[in-house]
């Protein structure tokens, strides 16, 4: 009774603190989750009542995001990163140790209610894998010994922050971050990782008209750094001229593509550059409000980012009359995500920021016409907005002459996997993949996943290709695989990722990925024949063509690109034609018992290894 009363009081207080605004549902649910360790049925009812929503709508949101749970969770949730790279570095062994030490399996909670254990998708620490989230605290380079100590310590003091003994470099040691994360900046370039005086780019921008700022960005030939490469100036032009009184600039910091962590480093080391870029974008498109959509995995950076925003408000770089410009007002709020890769898709991100399930929206209308809350909105990548600030500070011409003919500027690469120096590299467009591999110390790479699971697996034949929008376009995730890796196992891991992260809205992505993975695993098990490769290609093509958003349109890539570039790996595992009449049927296995009884081998289906039955051999002797 008193417990019910307590829950009611706390949930109502949380809703009221958010002005009972259904648009803030993610923040509300997050607070309830943190406070109660779950979002129970009773909490769903209370939230729905407070916000004037239906229970099933709130339940729809809670059940969508990985970081929310209707079932009770432990006070501390350990989320071990189960990404392909982390598994390569031993995440499974670490997982086993955690299970043994905690006495529970993944998906369970210790009996004392202290700790829950879960797998999670890439948390943006591939260069320091295996990594885990313990509450909001990031634990990196987690060896099995350290995993054992981690559990013992948590049992002793129950404070994830105390697991951090040494801080990482730069702002990772900031008093509001205090993380063991390291930046691993291996090569800084002139655009993103160079220094800049605060406010300098804004001052130069507001001296121009908004239309001139858009023109400068166009002159610089800036294209989106998230992967799709849409021209930024054009996106702004559409947003600026769309009908509506209120406009929004939204920064996509939902860096979820496995193997990418460049935005994490930007947010840590260059937050001023980013906010400067957002402010300029606001000026250019006529937005007074900006939203930084920050993935939940990076919640540990939030407090520092809030402090940076405060500093900028104090300095007149946010708020009213920015840099003394009459009539130019702009401010930024941080929206935290809740564990959903799909929210990196711009319309899904908007849905999520509106407090809805992270379903992509139907297009048209495009965000530039009707985006956040139905208002014209421009969604831009973290790195893109940093480029904007630099362009306005150093000049469009300066930027345009960097890089290659078709792609101006530099690109940040997040490099992980089998290489000597994983980390961040800022390189001009036009750099070849081979040059990058040389820099990172990956001379023996046999396969490189360019652009994350949604990108492509390429082999040595493609190492001379250039990074640029017309050749090897990428959001910057580079995962390197050495000769000892099984690339089909890697592809299968990526398919698991897409199955977990599909929103489930459209048929081809929801069902097709499950079917693709089933058939790939059939190949891996040695039970497929040549017709299965044809099946994979056709099914993959259907999923790619018919899916509603970028997730489904790229999710077959792990299979399609390995089929294209590593076909012999598949062919080597196919059943021989004389055994392939019913490939799923293992004739050798079925014959094993009768061989034992009759004491001789089948005349028709000889053993694959040519080994003779021992008794038979005895008989002939």
């Amino acid at each position, binding site marked *: 009774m008193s417990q019910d009363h307590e829950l009611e009081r706390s949930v109502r207080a949380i809703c009221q603190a958010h002005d009972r605004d259904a648009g803030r549902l993610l923040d509300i649910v997050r607070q309830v989750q943190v406070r109660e360790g779950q979002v129970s049925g009773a909490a769903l009812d209370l939230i729905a009542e407070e916000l004037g929503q239906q229970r099933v709508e709130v339940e729809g949101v809670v059940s969508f995001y990985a970081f929310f749970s209707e079932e009770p969770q432990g006070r501390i949730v350990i989320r071990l990163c189960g990404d392909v790279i982390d598994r390569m570095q031993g995440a499974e062994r670490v997982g086993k140790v955690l299970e043994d030490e905690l006495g529970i399996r993944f998906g369970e909670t210790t009996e004392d209610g202290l700790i829950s254990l879960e797998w999670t998708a890439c948390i943006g620490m591939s260069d320091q894998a295996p990594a885990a989230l313990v509450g909001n605290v990031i634990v990196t380079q987690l060896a099995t010994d350290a995993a054992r100590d981690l559990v013992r310590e948590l049992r002793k003091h129950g404070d994830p922050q105390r697991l951090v003994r040494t801080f990482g470099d730069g702002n990772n040691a900031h008093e509001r971050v205090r993380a063991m994360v390291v930046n691993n900046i291996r090569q800084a370039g002139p655009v993103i990782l160079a220094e800049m005086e605060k406010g300098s780019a804004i001052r130069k921008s507001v001296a121009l008209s908004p239309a001139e700022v858009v023109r400068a960005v166009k002159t610089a030939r800036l294209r989106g750094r998230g992967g799709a490469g849409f021209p930024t100036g054009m996106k702004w032009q559409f947003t600026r001229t769309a009908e509506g009184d209120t406009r929004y600039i939204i920064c996509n910091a939902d860096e979820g593509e496995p193997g990418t962590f460049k935005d994490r480093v930007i947010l840590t080391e260059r937050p001023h550059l980013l906010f400067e870029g957002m402010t300029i974008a606001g000026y250019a498109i006529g937005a007074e409000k900006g939203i930084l959509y920050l993935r939940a995995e990076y919640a540990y950076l939030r407090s520092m980012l809030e402090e940076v925003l405060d500093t900028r408000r104090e300095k007149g770089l946010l708020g009213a009359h920015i840099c003394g410009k009459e009539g130019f007002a702009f401010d930024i709020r941080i929206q935290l995500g809740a564990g959903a890769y799909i929210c990196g898709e711009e319309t899904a991100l908007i849905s999520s920021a509106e407090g809805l399930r992270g379903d992509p929206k139907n297009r048209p209308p495009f965000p530039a016409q009707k985006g956040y809350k139905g208002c014209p909105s421009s969604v831009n990548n973290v790195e893109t907005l940093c480029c904007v600030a630099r362009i306005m500070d150093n000049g469009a011409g300066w930027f345009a002459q960097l890089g290659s003919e078709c792609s101006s500027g530099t690109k940040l690469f997040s490099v992980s996997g089998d290489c000597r120096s994983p980390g961040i590299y800022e390189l001009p467009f036009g750099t070849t993949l081979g040059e990058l591999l040389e820099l990172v110390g990956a001379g023996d790479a046999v396969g490189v996943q360019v652009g994350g699971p949604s990108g492509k697996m390429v082999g040595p034949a493609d190492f001379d290709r250039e990074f640029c929008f017309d050749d090897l376009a990428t959001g910057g995730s580079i995962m390197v695989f050495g000769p000892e890796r099984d690339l089909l196992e890697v592809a299968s891991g990526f398919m698991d990722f897409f199955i977990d992260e599909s929103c489930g809205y459209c048929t081809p992505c929801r069902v097709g990925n499950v079917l693709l993975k089933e058939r790939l695993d059939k190949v891996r098990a040695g039970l497929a024949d040549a017709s299965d490769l044809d099946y994979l290609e056709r099914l993959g093509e*259907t999923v790619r063509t018919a899916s509603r958003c970028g997730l489904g349109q790229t999710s077959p890539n792990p299979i399609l690109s390995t089929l294209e570039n590593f076909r012999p790996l598949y062919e080597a595992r196919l059943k021989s034609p004389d055994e392939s009449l019913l490939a799923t049927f293992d004739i050798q296995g079925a014959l094993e018992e009768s061989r034992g009884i009759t004491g001789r081998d089948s005349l028709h289906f000889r053993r694959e290894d040519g080994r003779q039955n021992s008794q038979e051999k005895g008989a002939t002797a």
Partner: protein
Amino acid sequence: MSETFTFVIDDKEIEGCFGQTILEAAEEAGVYIPRLCHLKGLTPFGSCRVCTCMVNGRAMAACTQPAAPGMIVENASERVTEIRKSLVEMLFVEGNHFCMFCERSGDCELQGLAYRFGIAAPRYPYLFPERDLDASHDDIFIDRNRCVLCGRCVRASREKDGKHVFGFVGRGPAKRVQVNAEAALAETKVAVTDEAVAACPVGAILKKRTAYRVPVGERRYDHEPIGSDIEKRRTAAAE
């Protein structure tokens, strides 16, 4: 009267007006574009993708894509039909569809599409998911084994009945239709006369005690393929 324009579907000139989707304009002209999640009068949803067409060479859902002057739409081509068949087969293997035991047989849009496309058996392996039933309500029965996640009940309840009886929960393969209550349908405001109940294209939401009022053999798709009603309009107009 809004302004009209023409565009092309499979070499035939079609008249459309601004604000119409490709599917709506086609339907008015007597061209049937196969669909499942679309239901006239509800907000277009674009989830089943069965209405996928090639529009100026790019795949688009005809139910959400606005018709525009000069568009070249591929509707009945081999590659488009191949995609649609594949999608219908995916829906069959995703759920547990046993037409011979289903009271909607002959009146089911999923089955109707399979017959229209000549699908005898899906090429994909059955996934045999575990799904639950909800027979709590006096007059309405939910069998999630047959749900195709088209969202017609969700939209109809919200947009037509003003009730929000249904909603989606979960994501990916775990996505499902949930009722607006702690446990079961009986606790909701649903009524057997709700449009949400009638909106189900398959046998997932059924009215109890009505199963064989229309005998097998006299049902909607027993004699003519699904979409025939729309195609007849063109024949009628031509005569």
